C-alpha cells in the first residue's frame, strides 16, 4: 500500500519531533515508543526511522549527544534531542495536522452523516 506508506512517512516526521520534545531518546527507544504509542501503526519499517533522523539532524531540527549505554560499558549511544528550530518545526507540523484533521472531519462528516 504505497499511498498509506507515504502518508505514514509524512506523519512520522511530526511524531518523531513530538516524542523528542518530551525527552531525548536513542534510535531503538524512539522506534519502540512510536510503535507502542501508535498501537503498532508505526511499527513497521524501523529502518526508515534513521534516514528521517539523519535528515532532521542535517537540517538542525534535532541534535545528537553521545552517552554511555551503561556506566562503565565503554559503548556509547547517539541520543537525539529537539533543537529550538525543531520545536518551531513541530509547532508548524502540529498546526498543519490540526487543519488537515479538521478539514477531513468536516468533509467526511457531511458526506456520511
Amino acid at each position, binding site marked *: 500500500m504505497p499511498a498509506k506508506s507515504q502518508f505514514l512517512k509524512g506523519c512520522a516526521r511530526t511524531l518523531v519531533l513530538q516524542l523528542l520534545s518530551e525527552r531525548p531518546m536513542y534510535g*531503538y527507544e524512539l*522506534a519502540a515508543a512510536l510503535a507502542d504509542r501508535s498501537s503498532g501503526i508505526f511499527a513497521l519499517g*524501523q*529502518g526508515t526511522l534513521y*534516514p528521517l533522523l539523519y535528515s532532521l539532524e*542535517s537540517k538542525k531540527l534535532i541534535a545528537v549527544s553521545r552517552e554511555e549505554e551503561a556506566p562503565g560499558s565503554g559503548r556509547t*549511544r547517539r541520543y537525539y534531542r529537539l533543537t529550538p528550530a525543531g520545536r518551531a518545526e513541530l509547532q508548524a507540523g502540529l498546526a498543519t495536522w490540526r487543519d488537515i484533521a479538521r478539514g477531513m472531519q468536516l468533509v467526511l462528516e457531511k458526506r456520511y452523516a
Partner: protein
Amino acid sequence: MPDAIAQYLDQVMRHARLAPADARAVRAELDDHLQQLAADRAADIHSPTEMLAMLNQEFGDPKEVGNSIARSKGQLRTWLKKKARRLVIAAAALVMVGLLVRATVAEAFIVGGDGIAPILTRGSRIIVYKLANSYSPQDIIAYQPVDQPGLRLLAIVKQIDPATGDLRVTRNNGVELTVPRTAIVGRVVLSTRHSTP
C-alpha cells in the same frame, strides 16, 4: 545469530555507500538497534534464516534502507567527504604550481602609478613574463629600482646595450634612465587598460 545481523548490515551499508567515518558511526548505531531488536524477539527466532526474515520485515529491505540513508546523508556531501583528502592534495599542488609560476614564469600586477601613462594608467592590470631574455625598443618592462628592491616600476625600452644587456628606458614622457639587466623583472605581455571616467 550475530552473523545474520552482520550479513544484513553488510547489505545496508553496501547500498548506503557512505564515507568511512559516517559508515562506521551509522553501522554502530544500526547494529545497536538490531541487537536490541533481536534480543526482544529471541523467543521467536530459532535460526539465522528466521533472523534475516525478521530483520527484513521489521527493519525493512536492506537495499531500500541503505538507499534512504544515502539520500538522507546527502550524496554530494558523501562524495566530498570521500574525496576530501584528494581534493586537499590537489588544491595544495595547484597552489604550489601557482606560486612557482608566479615566482619564475609570469606574475600579474595592478598598476599603482602613472609612470608610463597614458599607455598604461593607474589601475590597469598587467601580466609580466619573467622568462623574457631579449627586448626591443617600445617594449614595456617591469623592473626593480636598485634603491627600492621591494618596488616594481614600469618603463618603455628605448635602447638595448648589446654588450651588457642593460636597457635604456624612459618613464614619465622623457625621463630616461638605465636599468641593469639584473634589475629587470620581465616584459609586460598582457594588459587591460584602466580607463578613468
